[in-house]
Every structure is written in C-alpha cells, then in structure tokens.
C-alpha cells in the first residue's frame, strides 16, 4: 500500500458543523483531526459511532466511516462494528445525556468486556440539543429548564463509574485545552482494550460561557506523583472535590475481549469440542 502523509485537514469532511458558535465540541473535533493525523490512520481504517445529541453530530464532520446511531446506543453499535471489522479503529462518541442516562446500562458491560474500542464522552452537563434540560452530570447550583430552581438529584461522576466497572483505561481532558486533548485521544486509541476518555466540553448556549472559565480554573494536571497503574491513586482522583485532574487516571494491562475469545476457542479446540463430528458423536443414540 502506498504511504500516505495525512495532515489534520485531511480528516475534515465537507460538512459544516452546526454547533453553536463557541461550542466546546469544536475543540474536540480539532483535537480529533490532529490525533488521527498524528497516528497516520487511513480514513478507511477508522469508524466513529455516535448516539444522539449535539456531540453525536461529530462523526459527520470527520472524513472516516461514520455512524449517527440511536440515542444512548453508541457503545453497542460500536461494539457491533468492531466485531464485524476487527481491524478497524472504532471510536464511540457520546454525550453525558446519551451515555449516562438513556444509554448508561451499556457502559458497565462494555468496560468488563474490554473490547478494543475508544469511548469518548463529551460532557457538557446539559441536554443541549433539546435546548437545556438537566443531565446526569448537572451540578446542584446549575439551574436548567427542567430544574428552574436548581437540581434535586445528585450528579453522576463518570470516572468513578468507569473505575467501578473495571475499564482498563480512564483519562480526562478539557476541550479548551486542545493540545492535551490530542494526547489523551492518541493514548486512548493506542490502549489495547476498552478506553474511556471523559472529555469536558462546555455548552456556551445553555450553561454559559462561565463553564469554560470554571473548568479552566479547576483544572490541574496529574503530576508525576500520580501512578495510573494504581487503583488507589485512581480512586483518589475520582473522589477529589474542588478541582478537576486532567490526564491518564488509570491504565491496566488486561487481556482484551478479542484475546480472551481466541483463547476460549483454543481451549475448545484442545478439548476436541471444536470438531462438529465429535460433538455429534456425544449425542449418538445406539441403533
């Protein structure tokens, strides 16, 4: 195959994004173009699968395979793509409403299955596409159209969930910091197994411009003292209050679904169960 030299703009599709001016998702899109170029991934070897919501418009803006699938179902659809086309780099994109509300049930199973795909959650803590209702990550002091006088429910902490579910890679970034986001996307894609990237991406329209400033002011870099192979360290980050740590929070070396599946096949073969005729013999009734 001829060598191709991809630049970020090679991944730009000819569809103009319809996000609001100033939307955090532009930063994610830019970072994704750069990450795909840095990885030199051919267009045809990448599939981006989304659910429904503002963030789920993203696949249309990237020149790779793209799926704008069903609300909450980015993960199971992405899983299907990966099983059918294992050589493809599969990226699932979901929002906080998409991935932590209607589609939350898929998250634990994808994590424990450890299928080799990347799950990027664009968290703006609001339902932006339906114009500003509370989401599972809306915080108490943030009024929304369905909670005009403030939240009456506790927000979900997606990193805690990912840790509890056994995700083998967990990172966090902020779309206002494109350079960092590029790094995190690259590492998430390179990680073998299920990788979860919690990507804070503000909604300027329904939360407000302050969301950028607030996240920036709370952001801290995970320093060298943080050991991402330590579950304890990771929990400490997940539990932190009053600041938002950015970087690779957790990374474990765990066999992927694909590897374990192959292993099971080998065991079956060694046991002789792989041969259909042998199986039939077990059920033969004497004439």
């Amino acid at each position, binding site marked *: 195959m001829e060598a191709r030299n991809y630049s970020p703009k090679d991944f730009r599709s000819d569809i103009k994004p319809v996000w609001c001016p100033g939307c955090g998702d532009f930063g994610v899109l830019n970072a994704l173009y750069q990450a795909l170029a840095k990885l030199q991934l051919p267009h045809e070897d990448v599939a981006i699968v989304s659910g429904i919501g503002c963030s789920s418009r993203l*696949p249309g803006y990237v020149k790779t395979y793209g*799926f704008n699938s069903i609300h909450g179902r980015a993960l199971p659809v992405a899983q299907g793509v990966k099983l059918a086309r294992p050589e493809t780099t599969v990226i699932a994109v979901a929002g906080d409403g998409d991935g932590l509300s209607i589609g939350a049930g898929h998250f634990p199973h994808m994590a424990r299955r450890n299928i080799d795909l990347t799950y990027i959650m664009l968290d703006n803590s609001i339902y932006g596409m339906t114009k500003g209702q*509370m989401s599972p990550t809306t915080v108490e002091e943030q009024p929304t159209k*369905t909670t005009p006088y403030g939240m009456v429910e506790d927000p979900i902490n997606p990193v805690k969930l990912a840790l509890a579910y056994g995700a083998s890679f967990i990172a966090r970034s902020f779309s206002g910091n494109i350079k960092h986001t590029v790094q995190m996307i690259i590492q998430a894609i390179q990680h073998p197994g299920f990788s979860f990237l919690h990507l804070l991406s503000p909604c300027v329209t329904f939360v407000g411009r302050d969301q950028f400033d607030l996240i920036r002011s709370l952001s801290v870099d995970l320093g060298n003292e943080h050991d991402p192979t330590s579950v304890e360290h990771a929990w400490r980050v997940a539990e932190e209050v009053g600041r938002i740590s950015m970087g690779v929070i957790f990374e474990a070396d765990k066999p992927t679904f694909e590897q374990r599946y192959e292993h099971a096949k080998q065991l079956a073969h060694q046991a002789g169960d792989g041969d259909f005729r042998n199986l039939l013999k077990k059920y033969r009734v004497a004439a």
Partner: protein
Amino acid sequence: MKKVMMGNHAVSYGARLSRVQVISAYPITPQTQIVEELSELCARGELEAKFIKVESEHSAMAACIGASAGGARAFTATSSQGLALMHELLHWAAGARLPIVLANVNRAMGPGWSIWSEQTDSLAQRDTGWLQIYCESNQEVLDTTIQAFKIAETLSLPVMVILDAFFLSHTYEPVDIPDQRGIDRFLPPFQPKVKMDIRDPHAFGALVTPEHYYEFRYNIQKAFERATGVIEEVGREFGEHFGRYYGLLEEYEMDDAEIVLVTSSTITSTARAVVRERRARGEKIGLLKVRVFRPFPFAAIRQALSGVRKAAVIDRNISFGHHGIFFSEIKSALYGQPDAPRLFGFIAGLGGRDVTPETIHDIIDITQHESKPQQDIYWIGLKSAGQKATAPKTAAVK
C-alpha cells in the same frame, strides 16, 4: 380566557387543568416544551404534582405505571423514537388497565434522522391497547388532553393524545382556556378502581396462567368496544360545559358529497380550505376527519361514507408492504358494505414534507378523473428520478 400558545403548551395547560399528580418524562424534540412548561408550573407551585425527569422514555412510562398503580393521575409526553422505546411498557400499561395519559408529538422515525411530522410512530403502537386520538388544532389539543383523563379513568385504559410535529407542536394559535372550576366539575379527582391500599390489598402484575389470561384480553377488547360510546359521551359532556363538542369523526360538507377526502390531524385544515374552494366551483366534494383511531370507529365510518361515490384517504404514514394505515383500516371497515365508495389511497407528506393546497387539489383531481383506482397506492409529491432533491446535504459516509 383566550391565550396565544404553541401546541406543546396546549398539552401542558391541559395536563395542568386536569390536575395531574405525577409527571415523568425524558426530553425529545419536538415534545420537550410540554414537560418543560409542566416542570416550571410544578416548581412555581401552580401545579401540585411531582415532576421527575428520568433517564429514558422506557423509565418514564415505567414511573407512570407505578404512579398510576399507586393511585395517582399520571402523565407523560414523548415522540417518535421515545415512543418506540416505550413500546414494551405501553403493552404493560394497557394490560394492567392503568388510565395513564400520554401526549405524543408525531415525528418520523429514523434513519435517516428526521424531526419532522409523520404518524408512523404512533400508528405503529396501534396494537398495544392504547386509545388514540389525533388532534387538528391547538384548541383541540388542550380540550382532548382534558377529555383523555376522563375517558381513560372511565374505561381503565390508557389514552394517547396525538399532535403533529411543528405544524401544531411549535405553531402558535389562539386557545380558549377553560376555567379551573369548570374543569373540576367536568373531571373529578381520580378514583382508582384498584390501587395500593392496605385495607384492600392486591398483587400487581402477577403471573397469569392460560386459565385466566384469555379472559383478561377479552375484557380489554370489551372495554374498547365500550370506548366509542364513552368518547362520544365525554365529548358531548365537554361541549355542554365549555361549548366545544367532540366526536369520533368530524364531517364537513358531507351532505350531498360525491367525493370525500378522508384525513386526520393538521392535513384536515388544509383539506377543509381546498374543499371550500372546490365547493365554490360547484363540485360536490366533502371532508371526513378521523379523530379517533383506537378504538377504530367502524360504525361511524360506514355510516359517514355510505352512498358516497369515491373516497380519497390521505395518509401521512405507511405500513411497509401494505398501505397507508388509515386507508387499510377504512378499507376493512367498508368490507362487504353494499353502498361503499371506491377507495383511493394516497400517501403524502412523509418526514414532514409539506402537504399544500396544491397537493390536495392533485388528490381531488386524480380521484375525479379515474373511475376506479389505477394504483394500490398513489404517492403524491414524490420527486421523480430526474428531479434533484433540495434536502440539506447529509453526512457523507464513504
């Protein structure tokens, strides 16, 4: 009091006047404003109800089921994909005989993703055991929402109030809001026949063997057979209270009509204007609006179309491999009737494409011109192969 409001808010006001007690919903375009307004009314204390924004439509209907079984007047609203996700629980609500009211904004199903109007979402739920009432105007939306609770609670069956995406949901029209005292007289508080009550304990949703299940189904069907009468009675009573009468169907210029257009929802308003125009030219055209789809008003349809020469049914929906859904239901109602009209089936306006007066004129012209239908389905306004679609460019997937 008259107020100019969008169709979605007409639903909200209807629910508020009905003094709903539990509202459980999930956002989806183009429904969201219904529950947004209700959440605001709850938060301000103008409505004594518990409002919960749950994690999916499936959960929304589940919470309504629990609330209704608990003895509360329960309400939700959804659209399209959301209604499809509720499907399992729609069966449950009806099977459990819970008088839940649901407002569905008719929106086309994906893919390709569409937020525009089409009836296939609600019509696909026709066998779930829900009554279905289709609305033509925002006034009808508000009035029907209130009547829906009375109908539902009389029959112990859930009712779906249905309105077109954007043509009603987001369109502002003057709506007369009945006063609360009048509504309280018309719709007394919910008195559940069975509820969670320590003095009269019941189990809910238990396993039912073939010994009993069959009779449960028979009872539901019997309730549906009573429903046509109940809907008419409630519509009449509403008229006595508030001056606006409602029935199963609505006839316009039907007395000596030779050709009758059969419509539902907002297409009716356009058709009415066209019929008026054709009448002015001396053509004997009439219009029949189908308001109630479940229970299907067999007798009323037969009577209304008896002696009519030709009828043209306009469907903004399709049952693939079959017909427009209103068309096939009307056809089955007319089977074996000696004086039934020749029935023409038209599909129009799928995915929210405009059904303009020209579209209706075309339909009348075809029906006038042909002595009997030349096609199983007439697709009106279909772009021919040579014609370039003007739809916006969608994501290019290579």
